[in-house]
């Protein structure tokens, strides 16, 4: 297999290009990793730490997209989960009590699973297009998050809760370990059970899958559940990192960044084959890009312009149809209808 055909080639090349740019532009700032009080500090560590929630959401999004769906509600679920956890903790007498933390985490994960189930049911049982079905929760979810926080920013003073998002273990941010764990679970679930095969099969060809005896309904519900779960954990990390929950702004635009990460990672939006490692790299690219832009002193908001071009370029590169259309357009330039009408010979 030629190396540039490997599905990780383009994502890795992009990441390498970004890292290389930083090597020339700001090697000092970017690549220095210091040890302070037994913890590692540095830009590279920050990228991993701040990128953790996005990676999690993107992992969940990957399996949803593999079934040919999309989940627009993840940003809202991130906000709801963080809000729920912070609300529970803020009501406790001793905010560091383990029981209270367990309750908070269980509650926010439980509610996220419920929301995932809701999405899954709308898509699989009622048969609404995924983009529309999850739009409902995208809109209402923000409201629910604000309802939970009563429109305020709930601040908690729990060192233990804070540990989730800003603690460190073995010198590394704890969130990295969560990401590794979720990633490992996702890989195990999809590659060590038959779920991965079912997901790819349903995403690529639903009617053939049905005739092969796959119960696609359960597969769809499972992926939306998992996506909700990932978003919930991301919400916990985000809120714990800043020790507060903001129903309005937490997880804003996460759905879009996550979709972008998945697409950069090589998973097609039309469903089928999915690449969790690709998604991981995709999310890292986005985070590195954000950090790089920040470091070269351009207003961070300009990241959006760069992202816009990345989205387009990646879509164009990935779509075989793009290259094909260029060739085909030329060949059929005098028969505009031939390339449009579905061929049946």
């Amino acid at each position: 297999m030629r190396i540039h055909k490997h599905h990780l080639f383009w994502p890795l090349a992009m990441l390498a290009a970004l890292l290389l740019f930083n090597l020339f532009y700001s090697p000092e700032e970017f690549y220095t990793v210091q040890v302070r009080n037994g913890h590692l500090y540095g830009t590279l560590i920050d990228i991993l730490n701040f990128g953790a929630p996005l990676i999690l959401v993107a992992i969940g999004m990957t399996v949803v997209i593999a079934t040919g769906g999309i989940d627009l509600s993840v940003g809202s679920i991130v906000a709801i989960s963080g809000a729920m956890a912070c609300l529970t903790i803020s009501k406790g007498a001793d905010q560091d009590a383990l029981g209270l933390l367990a309750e908070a985490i269980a509650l926010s994960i439980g509610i996220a699973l419920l929301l995932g189930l809701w999405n899954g049911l709308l898509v699989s049982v009622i048969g609404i297009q995924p983009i529309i079905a999850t739009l409902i929760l995208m809109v209402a979810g923000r409201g629910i998050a604000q309802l939970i926080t009563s429109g305020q920013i709930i601040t908690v003073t729990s060192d233990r809760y804070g540990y989730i998002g800003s603690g460190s273990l073995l010198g590394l941010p704890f969130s990295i370990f969560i990401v590794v764990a979720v990633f490992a679970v996702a890989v195990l679930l999809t590659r060590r059970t038959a779920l991965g095969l079912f997901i790819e099969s349903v995403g690529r060809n639903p009617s053939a899958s049905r005739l092969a005896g796959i119960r696609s309904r359960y597969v769809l519900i499972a992926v939306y559940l998992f996506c909700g779960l990932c978003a919930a954990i991301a919400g916990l990390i985000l809120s714990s990192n800043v020790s507060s929950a903001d129903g309005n702004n937490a997880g804003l635009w996460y759905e879009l960044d996550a979709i972008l990460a998945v697409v950069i990672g090589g998973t097609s939006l039309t469903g089928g084959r999915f690449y969790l490692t690709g998604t991981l790299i995709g999310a890292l690219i986005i985070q590195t890009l954000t950090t790089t832009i920040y470091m070269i002193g351009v207003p961070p908001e300009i990241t959006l312009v760069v992202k816009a071009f990345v989205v387009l370029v990646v879509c164009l590169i990935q779509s075989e149809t793009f290259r094909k259309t260029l060739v085909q357009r030329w060949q059929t330039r005098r028969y505009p209808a031939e390339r449009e009408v579905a061929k049946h010979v």
Partner: protein
Amino acid sequence: MSTVDGQEREPILQMSGIYKHFPGVKALNNVSFRLFPGEVHALMGENGAGKSTLIKVLTGVYSIDQGAVTLSGRHVAIHSPLEAQAAGISTVYQEVNLCPNLTVAENIFIGREPRRFGRILWKEMNRKAEQLLRERLQLGIDVTQPLYMYSVAIQQLVAIARALNISAKVLILDEPTSSLDRNEVEQLFKIMRKLKEDGLAILFVTHFLDQVYEISERITILRNGEFVGEYEAAQLPRIELVSKMIGKELELLGELPKAGGEGRAEAKESLIEAIGLGRKGAIEPFDLLIGKGEVVSLAGLLGSGRTEMARLFFGADRPDQGQLLLKDSPGAVHSPRQAIDAGIAFCPENRKTEGIIDDLTVRENIVLAMQATRGWMRRIPRKKQDELADQYIKALNINPPNPEHLVKNLSGGNQQKVILARWLLTQPKLLILDEPTRGIDVGAKAEIQKLVLSLARQGMSVLFVSSELEEVVRVSDRIVVLRDRKKVKEMQEDIGQQQVMQAIAGG
């Protein structure tokens, strides 16, 4: 080849020496076609004969590789449906190509709405539409209702009205009758006769033999993209028509020895029985019993209901009457999953859209059904998957013999074998094969036939659907003949191609 010379008239449309290639397929190979004003001309052929391609070439949807088209004596080159319409050729497709969300009047006039200063004159449009439908098609409906409110038959007529309004030289009707009931067909034919009298030339595509003889004067037959001949309907006996479509000249139909008749038990224990099973618009209620180790074939022309019958046995479509009785298991068959659990397997006719998962590997495609029955928890270990894939790749001679090859890169015959392997892995009691040999090369065809016979010898029952009579006769113990969505005959003894053909032709 017996081409009938037309009268002294000039054909309004003449296509000669048409070639059209698609990647890997010769869709049209030196095809000719003539159409005279005031006639209904039937274009006949089995699946893949090239009818649709010919029509799409004629209406400018596809380009022509080689060949000439003359219309009213003038050489024309048509590049788009719009140009075809402008030249006077209009098409009504089988799957009504109108917009169901627009009103009837709009569907007739869209693109050419009556306007004043750019403003669409709805009243005038509605009035014209109503007048057109009433006067030319004897149809009095509310033209301001959206099209989806009406039956397919009426939608079909609206499509014809649109065609008539645009141009009135050549009207192409591509299988207009396939979803109409008897009365609706009558109504359509009445209108076709009237239009014929008005001097319109009608190209009519259908699979129903009765209808061909009822309405058309002339028949052109295509087979595998090749021109077979042009005939006067009155001088072409049904059986000859069928044989020309299927591709066996009558005199050549010697009785080929049956390949595996001997050695099979006489009295069969029953395995599955359909009682009064049917589905509206697909297949009329039928009874059919399949015995253990028996090969039952469904013979009939395209559109005769063979596929529909096979799908009911698998629960791929839901029957609206009757029942399916399984002798061994009490479970009902309402979905493919239940069918699989009851030991039924189904290779669908349309490999690409219902069979293979094109982006997955050969191995993944092979283990799919077995894995589905095991559930997601009990994944077949990778080593076992490799073994199974290797075993079946060898057994079925799948080429290239690489289990990690993407199935979309395989040839049609090998894709078919992959699907067969997928089902054999589940060790079914009944294997349903819908056109398993269509579009695959001769070698692979023989292999699949041999496989069917050896499976039956091992006690597996097979329900076999094929348009190739030779194949049907060769492999089956019993042949069920279907015509016009009805089971018309069941033949057990002395099956010869000729008898089957007669039964298919009917009348």
